[in-house]
């Protein structure tokens, strides 16, 4: 039995997970270095639970609550912004619908030139976008998958 072998077992023995063999005991009886190591390990075991523990400042809880409120306010702001955008989009759709209805029923007259110009603009834009459509589709798919994986990992981290 060597000092190194004893050294590897000291903490397991002191914690009650292992026991000294007769060889180890014989070595310990004569080796001052190992005896010193055991005494140091016992000192560490004695002092570890008694070391000073850091305590939070008195304002800690109020600080946490202030951060919670701030975070909630930001979340509500984001929700409000989304709601406002949705309302604006809805209003735009209603206005467009009413205008379309009025145009189709003849209440509003739009010149043939304007209609032709709009058709041409739509056709040109469509023709430019069409060749890139697979790229846009793949990019959108990857973005969706990325967001899905991010959401899943966040969700998994918080579970249990």
């Amino acid at each position, binding site marked *: 039995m*060597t*000092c*190194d072998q004893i*050294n*590897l077992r*000291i*903490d*397991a023995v002191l*914690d009650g*997970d292992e026991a000294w063999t007769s060889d180890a005991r014989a070595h310990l009886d*004569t*080796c*001052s*270095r*190992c*005896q*010193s*190591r055991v*005494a*140091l*390990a016992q*000192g*560490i*075991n004695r*002092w*570890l*639970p*008694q*070391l*000073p*523990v*850091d*305590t*939070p*400042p008195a304002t*800690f*809880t109020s*600080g*946490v*609550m202030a*951060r*919670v409120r701030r*975070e909630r306010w930001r979340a509500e702001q984001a929700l409000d912004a989304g709601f406002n955008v949705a309302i604006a989009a809805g209003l735009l759709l209603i206005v467009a619908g009413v205008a379309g209805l009025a145009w189709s029923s003849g209440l509003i007259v739009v010149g043939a030139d304007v209609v032709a110009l709009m058709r041409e603009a739509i056709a040109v834009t469509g023709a430019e976008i069409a060749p890139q459509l697979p790229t846009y589709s793949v990019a959108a798919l990857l973005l969706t998958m990325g967001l899905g994986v991010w959401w899943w990992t966040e*969700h998994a*981290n*918080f*579970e*249990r």
Partner: protein
Amino acid sequence: MSDTAERDLIARCRQGEDGAFRELVDQYKGLVFALVARTIRDPSRAEDLAQEVFLKIHRGLPYFRGDARLSTWIYRIVVNLCASERPSRDVPLDAGDEERPAWEPGGPDRAYGDVELRDRLDKAIRRLPAHYRVLVAGHYLRGMKYEDLAEALHLPMGTVKTHLHRAKRLLREMLEEPRPGSEQRTANSE
């Protein structure tokens, strides 16, 4: 805190009761702050990080299924947050300790030697690798059981014990380091 009281507190937090979350913070701030302060090396970051832990708890409570104890779940959040803390933010360690002699048992003044050992141990813990610091802080300073540590870290209990033994061996080796220039202590046959 009993299991029933803990479940009740979690339920009230989930309903958005600010008072309940305040209770939860009061209940666990000692544990969280002590663990964070022991695990990171820059004490000035402890309060900020400990508050961050509670923000994560607040966000995560709706997803907490209650399979583990709340303290175990909180410990895991502390471990993850401290692990994500960039090492470059760590402040330099106190070099003053290097000037002191190595610890020797049974010296002329045992009481003084013990107090000195405590001080040196306190500093040596800060020199441990982060994953050992958080284990030592959880088990020895906050009294967490092996089972709870194993559950929080997703490790077998035997591995947790082995890590704690290694951490203590490292601490011993740090405390045994002789001061520069001091005589090498005599060693028995190896």
